[in-house]
């Protein structure tokens, strides 16, 4: 019988898994990739997986990347699934990015400013020429060092804010929501929107942010400040009554400053779009800030015409773990429904043929 159903028992699945493991390892003559190598040398991949996996743990991210053969969405999925099983023993206090030990800090809206401009380890001004010396495993040249300046660098929006030219941060008293515990509902508060964006797919946010620059919901953005560095995470156990430092995170923050013409009740001033992402990911932090600002259109009395301005559209489609699962589920068997459609189309065709024969 020629029919081979796409039905596999446990053995088929097991075989597929062992084949996958072999393929993952590649040529055994090539040394196995260590997690420390991934963590140390594929830092941007680690950062992306931690951000989209919504779990800050470089070692686990390295394992996930290795296990997923460098498929970063698959790796983020591994982290997410693991994250679900972790107990929550406390909620952190809001991290204070003004107290960041910044490795990079730039502002596009002032030539110079208190704290200065720090380029940091950026690709920005590299010429994108393949470096064949890197292929030969040449050690990098020594980077010049200076005594670390640990004084906090004021945030540019805070400087602008003193003049009232920039809207203030919203009130902070309410407990922020958590869409990993409570499903999205609308209207979604800015806390939830920002959480969704911070976990969202970098490519999706990039495309959405880009679309606002091309006229689909434009908001005249200026990169008020982009900074990257370490912040402290603090918790305040109720039995202690004071905050304790439990560790450091590297984050990238972007504050976009956008024009706002003002309204009957409000003087013209600048508004903000905000981006904050685990690790060093400027592309995502900036995209996030653009999309955050675009989604505030309704709140600020602007016309809502573009996809990026529609929170329901953005939030329901920004999560790549949800998206990849549902897109890829189309490869699961659907033959029962297809059979229904086959019979249906046959029935419709018969009906038409009968009608034509009768005419």
């Amino acid at each position, binding site marked *: *019988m*020629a029919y*081979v*159903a*796409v*039905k*596999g*028992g*446990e*053995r*088929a*699945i097991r*075989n*597929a898994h062992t*084949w996958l493991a*072999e393929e993952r390892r590649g040529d055994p003559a090539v040394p196995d990739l260590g997690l420390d190598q991934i963590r140390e040398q594929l830092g941007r991949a680690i950062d992306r997986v931690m951000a989209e996996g919504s*779990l800050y*743990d470089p070692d686990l991210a390295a394992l996930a990347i290795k296990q997923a053969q460098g498929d970063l969405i698959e790796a983020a*999925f591994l982290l*997410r*699934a693991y*994250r*679900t*099983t*972790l*107990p*929550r*023993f*406390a*909620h*952190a206090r809001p991290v204070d990015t003004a107290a960041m030990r910044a490795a990079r800090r730039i502002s596009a809206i002032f030539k110079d400013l208190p704290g200065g401009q720090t380029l940091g380890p950026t690709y920005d001004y590299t010429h994108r020429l393949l470096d064949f010396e890197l292929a030969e495993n040449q050690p990098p040249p020594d980077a010049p060092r200076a005594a670390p300046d640990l004084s906090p660098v004021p945030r540019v929006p805070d400087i602008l804010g003193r003049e009232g030219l920039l809207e203030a941060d919203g009130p902070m008293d309410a*407990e922020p929501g*958590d869409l*990993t515990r*409570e*499903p999205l509902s*609308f209207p979604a508060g800015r806390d939830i929107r920002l959480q969704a964006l911070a976990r969202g797919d970098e490519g999706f946010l990039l495309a959405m942010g880009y679309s606002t620059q091309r006229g689909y919901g434009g908001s005249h953005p200026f990169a008020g400040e982009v900074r990257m560095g370490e912040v402290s995470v603090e*918790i305040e*156990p109720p039995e202690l009554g004071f905050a304790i430092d439990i560790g450091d995170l590297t984050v990238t923050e972007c504050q976009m400053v956008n024009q706002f013409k003002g309204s009957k009740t409000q003087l013209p001033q600048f508004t903000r779009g905000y981006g904050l992402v685990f690790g060093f990911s400027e592309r995502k932090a900036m995209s996030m800030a653009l999309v955050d600002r675009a989604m505030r259109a309704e709140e600020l009395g602007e016309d809502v015409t573009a996809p990026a301005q529609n929170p*329901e559209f953005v939030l*329901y489609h920004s999560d790549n*773990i*949800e998206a990849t*699962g549902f897109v*890829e*589920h189309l490869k*699961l*068997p659907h*033959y*029962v*429904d297809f*059979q*229904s*459609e086959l*019979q*249906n189309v046959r*029935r*419709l065709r018969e*009906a038409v043929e009968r*009608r034509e024969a009768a005419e």
Partner: protein
Amino acid sequence: MFAVCVRRWNGGRRRSDADCYDNSTIFIPHCPRGTFMKGYNFAYLDEQTKRMIRRALLKAVAIPGHQVPFGSREMPLPYGWGTGGIQVTASVLGRDDTLKVIDQGADDTTNAVSIRQFFARTAGVRTTTHTGEATVIQTRHRIPEETLRENQIIVYQVPQPEPLYRLEPSRVETKRMHALADYGLMHVKLYEDVARLGQISISYDYPVMVNNRYLMSPSPIPAFDNPKMNRMPALQLFGAGREKRIYAIPPWTEVRSLDFDDHPFRPINAHQACGLCGATDSYKDEVITDDLGGRMFVCSDTDHCEQRRAATVQRHGPARPGHRAVSGPSDETGDDGSGAPRHGEAATP
């Protein structure tokens, strides 16, 4: 502000009994069927998540057909592959349950095998392929042919719980429509079908009215299965993980497929009898047997077909050879006895 998770629970303040089971390191030592995965709670989900889902399930049963939002968790299987059904099953399942998992009506389709393995590993429960033996049946795309009993629970995997989504993509809008029981859009769609095609053209995921109040997606089962939902003796639970919705139909509840008086609901099925067991009243898969147009029709419900054939063998002796190549036994080895290669089996290049 974000939650701080720990990789290993190492003390901390014990807030309540509930909390100390609410983590990944608790291993329940006494499981009669032994081995379930070390480091995870019974049936994978932590107790806090189960309580949340159980509360949603009770509300769902109390409001038949209404989609109850729930804090769907990220499961170790992809969204769209049954994460909603798995979470519902995990919250319902106990040590004494017997679980059956089907996909497309078959116990041995890859995803059914994978989900059954998941529960065998994480809950150590007894599994079966026989509809009659199961206390909990998780399904994707079919309702078994055998009439389900009172005290059985059927859990449907639901990709898209919103029956109106093709007509109105905004969930803010559809939620309002459900609140007002305003289903005009759907009636217009069906009416347009009739006007244009002379009949309603939906062949699966055919919308139903539950208890005369809520328009509901029956999940992508063929319309053929819709009548089984009406006044079903078993409890029907629906889980949509990615869309984060749970809904339910209590036993003996009226479930009506939408139609018009002059165009009554007509389920679709192949006219042919099953090529293996001869059943005429079961839903059929169309199986292409060669590339010259040859095909046969066989029961989509593999357990139903096997039971019928087994009964025939008892009466008339062994059936003709070749039968097993199509549906195969649903034993866990995946060996179909036909020697025919199966998908994905050639492991080493």
